[in-house]
């Protein structure tokens, strides 16, 4: 933990920005560079920064949930996205798509299990990186 007013003040802004950017990266991932892994990395960077500025206990309070549990929930979500295909009689991990408001020449808003899988990956990466970093931060 570093005791610096500049870092402290900047962190408040940066954490929010990084988290928002991570969600943007997550959602953009389907057709463009980005996705769950990158999103999770960027999101966890935000909290790593917070941990450097405010210390590990404050970060745990800010996170509310334990990072290990977040990672495990993420694993569960990713698994669910794979298993979801069972309801449609498809093979394991077959992507299922729902096009909301689709018309003849517009695909509408595509919602898919691929996205759900990516959200799971996001949480796994986010949770496991924070687990490691917070453990290291508390040791030092």
């Amino acid at each position, binding site marked *: 933990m570093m005791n610096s007013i500049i870092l402290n003040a900047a962190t408040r802004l940066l954490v929010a920005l990084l988290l928002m950017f991570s969600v943007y990266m997550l959602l953009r991932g389907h057709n463009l560079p980005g996705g769950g892994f990158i999103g999770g990395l960027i999101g966890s960077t935000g909290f790593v920064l917070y941990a450097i500025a405010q210390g590990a206990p404050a970060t745990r309070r800010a996170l509310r949930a334990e990072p290990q549990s977040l990672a*495990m*929930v993420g694993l569960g979500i990713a698994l669910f996205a*794979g*298993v979801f295909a*069972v309801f449609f009689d498809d*093979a*394991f991990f077959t992507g299922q798509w729902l096009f909301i408001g689709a018309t003849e020449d517009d695909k509408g808003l595509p919602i898919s299990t691929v996205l759900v899988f990516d959200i799971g990956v996001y949480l796994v990466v986010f949770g496991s990186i924070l687990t490691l970093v917070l453990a290291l931060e508390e040791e030092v």
Partner: protein
Amino acid sequence: MSWLLAAPIIIPFATAVLAFLFRNGPEGRWISIIGAAGLLIASGILMAEVLAEGVVAAQMGQWGAPFGITLVADLLSAVMVVITGITGLAVAIYALADIEERLEKLGYHALFQVLLAGVCGAFLTGDLFNLYVWFEVMLIASFGLLVLGGRRDQLDGGIKYVTLNLVSTILFLSGIGLLYGMTGTLNMADLHGAVQEVENQGLLVVVAVMFMIAFGVKAAVFPLFFWLPASYHTPSVAVSAIFAGLLTKVGVYALIRMFTLVFTTDIAFTHTILLWVAGFTMVTGVLGAAAMNDFRRILSFHIVSQIGYMILGLALYTPLAIVGAVFYLVHHIIVKANLFLVAGVARRIAGSTDLSAIGGLYKTAPWLAFLFLIPAFSLAGFPPLSGFWAKYVLVKAAIDAEAYVIAGTALVVGLLTIYSMTKIWGAAFWKPHPGGLQPKLSSLAPRDRAALLVPIASLAALTCIIGLFPEPFVQFAERAADQLLDPSAYVAAVLGADEVGLTGLAALEVTE
């Protein structure tokens, strides 16, 4: 079909998630047991399907082979998954009494289930890169289990285990890269045909040796086994038992799979190396065991020695030898996991695994002595237990192949195995306890006693059943060996019957 093949992977993963979320209460351990039982049932259904239908295969996400990820089960894969289910359930029950609450809160059950998922995935996948991924899933879970709790000797053993296994991982990855560069495919069934068309067969042998080293580290063969006796005796007993039973066998399975399905282009060279490796592995393992003075460390060296027998079966590469290897693989997982479980009970009631610090178990805990003798004799190859038939088939195969030296080595190593088993027997069971302690099973709480002894007794019973009625098991191993030596059914199941003959780059051109 797809779900049947995916279930042994999905069930442990789902169990891991649930067990982790409930890790602070007693629910976690029951979820783990239910999950392990579910895995056993799923593997049993898969086995029935494979027995009835032959090789079954499915494409994940409906991406056709050889481009997508294939899950495939032949008899060898199916039986390995069943054995994983059996040992998984046995160890999950044993863990009820063995794993402290502190470790449960750190997520022991979740890591254990992820390990099972990784092992099952490695057995079921039909894609080389996917095999790499499952190896890593297994590896990262085993890292966690090995150092869980963070005692100093655990960290010491853990560092050696982690670093050496990472080296093997990177060799594996490089091998995958080079093989892909040469053949243009990573689907194992597709590779079977594609390697025949590689122009520079010499390069292929180089890659084969890279894979041999990579899997050899995982399987703990000579001279790559040093991480195993350095680390296997340090974690909790339940963890040692599942490691001893399953982890090295995944390496052996991968060797058998790759060197019967893919790297068969220069058998005279590759399998001769394997034969030397097998001989040295048997001898160094058993000599190492003779020099040790700790229950679990002796057993760790025995794993190495026994791996040599399985490699011997693969190296001889005759139908009978492969039968022996498959039979040995199955028998050894059960016996070895069981011996570690017995060592754990001995430590519980006598206070240590150091042979000079314990004793008197025969007098005061005769049932434990009996339960130790069954797997110990089986490991050494006494008739009529399972190990006898496994060794008999292998030695017979070696003599038939006129490899008299290796047959003799196998027999001598068997004798030395008996020597170190009698060492454990004499020190832990016969001599009086040096501290004057009277180790009794009744000193355990009834609930703990049941949780510790039921898995040991069940695995011992299984050993006896295989030993007394070996006929169906040998027949099964024969069928499995037939499938391994003639992979046409495997290839047809994965690629579809029409596409046999069009492999690798050729198949790519057609689809383009």
